[in-house]
């Protein structure tokens, strides 16, 4: 038996019922801690995992795929004149 001066207060848990009561309290507070801290911890872990990586290859969007050859042939002479008229930017 340990000396009682240091623990003071209540009686030492001698019987099984007294010990159970103590354990019950402890597990209840642990449950509360899990309920409160759980989502926070989970959230922070998730937050740390979500990352957006830039693709290492340039994204090429082919917008000209639908332009037909006939259209290009029709515009060809006009575009040729335009280039000659604006030589400073071509």
């Amino acid at each position, binding site marked *: 038996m340990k000396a009682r001066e240091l623990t003071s207060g209540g009686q030492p848990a001698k019987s099984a019922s007294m010990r159970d009561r103590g354990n019950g309290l402890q597990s209840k507070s642990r449950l509360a801690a899990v309920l409160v801290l759980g989502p926070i911890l989970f959230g922070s872990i998730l937050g740390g995992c979500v990352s957006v990586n830039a693709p290492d290859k340039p994204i*090429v969007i082919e*917008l*000209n795929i639908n*332009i*037909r*050859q006939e*259209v*290009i*042939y*029709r*515009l*060809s002479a*006009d*575009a*040729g004149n*335009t*280039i000659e*008229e*604006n*030589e*400073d*930017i*071509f």
Partner: protein
Amino acid sequence: MQRGLENRKLRRIVLAAGAVALALGGLAGPAYAERDPAYDAARASGQVGEKMDGYLGIVTGETPELRRLISDINIKRRAVYAQKAQAASATIEEYALTAGCLAIARTQPGEKYQAPDGGWRTRTTAPPVRDARCP
């Protein structure tokens, strides 16, 4: 008295000369349709190339100045394409792609152009590799 009058005459001559120079400069500006020397140099060195879509692209050695220069030319090209496309009842993209075909055909050996696979090629004396739809 005499000196003051002479000074005034001299000042008038200088002012007139300045006005003439300004007028001449204003006239000469738009009449000169030559490439910016920096643009010409960037083309010749292969820093800048003709893209299939009718605009310029930076191949290598991008600097803020070069980016600005090329963006400026591309904006001007787009304005021209928009105007001409409307007159020809075509879309800007159609007109720009056509101009791109021709601009690539006009490249000089050593200059860069974009091949149909999207990669940059150096123009040789041989005809450039172009889109199958190009005239």
